[in-house]
């Protein structure tokens, strides 16, 4: 691949630092989460976070909705979902207001997860031997 990646990240692999923003529509107040998200291509959605993040979102006054979700072990659970944006991945900042995402919260995973649907917006290269994850803009 001859193009230059807009994100190139070494260890820990495969992680990306993601700035996730939840905004209350009527007041414009924001809650910013800058998280080291593990890239999980099995998770078909955008961002998955532990349920304790719900508190900050609720306190901001942003509604969270019950949403059925299937976990990796096949178990069906009722997670919480809200509308959010991804403003930045590593050093790359996206044009305002960022990328629209559905943010899911449930349980207590070790790390927040970045799922396949969000990753599919770009061309991702997982260089296993060198432990480097790169993102390229689509042609």
């Amino acid at each position, binding site marked *: 691949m001859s193009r230059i990646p807009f994100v190139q990240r070494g260890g820990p692999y495969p992680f990306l630092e993601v700035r996730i923003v939840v905004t209350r529509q009527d007041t414009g107040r924001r809650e910013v989460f800058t998280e080291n998200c593990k890239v999980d291509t099995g998770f078909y959605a955008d961002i998955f976070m532990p349920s304790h993040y719900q508190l900050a979102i609720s306190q901001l006054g942003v509604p969270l*909705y019950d949403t059925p979700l299937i976990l990796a072990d096949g178990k069906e659970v009722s997670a919480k979902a*809200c509308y959010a944006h991804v403003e930045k991945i590593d050093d790359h900042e996206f044009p305002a207001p960022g990328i629209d995402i559905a943010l899911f919260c449930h349980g207590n995973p070790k790390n927040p997860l970045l799922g396949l649907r969000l990753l599919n917006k770009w061309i991702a290269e997982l260089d296993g031997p060198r432990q480097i994850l790169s993102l390229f803009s689509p042609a």
Partner: protein
Amino acid sequence: MSGVISGTRIERHKDSTATVGFQVFTGTTIQMDLQEVIDRLVVARLDDVYRRIEQFDQRLTNIENEFEELKMMIEAGGMKLSEERKLKVQKDICKRLSDLLTKNFMNKYVAITYDGQIVASAETDIELLKKLREITYPSDQIFLHKVGSTAVAGWL
């Protein structure tokens, strides 16, 4: 002045205001300085009060610990139960609305209230969440559903 404290009769000595006589059960009278008597009584009473406070405090700590354990047990069980109950209610509502949903909203994402009203629909979950920001309905009374699928997202 006279009175009975813990079975001991206390009498003020008639010649002095500063001393008192203790007529104990044996009939012996012990002369003591009034201040000393008061001090001894106060110390004895205070020791008793402190001991009782310590006992009470210990009992309160035990009750608090038991209460916390109980609370944690209830919360752990309650959360699981409420989540399972929510999923069951969601499935029941979707089953009841299945004809309407499959006819008009196949493969779409819908927001349904727990009393069975469809309040919004969209092609994607992101669009649906965006639309819901305009709807003034309590968010805890709404759940999301993807028509024709068991879950909205996850490890599918």
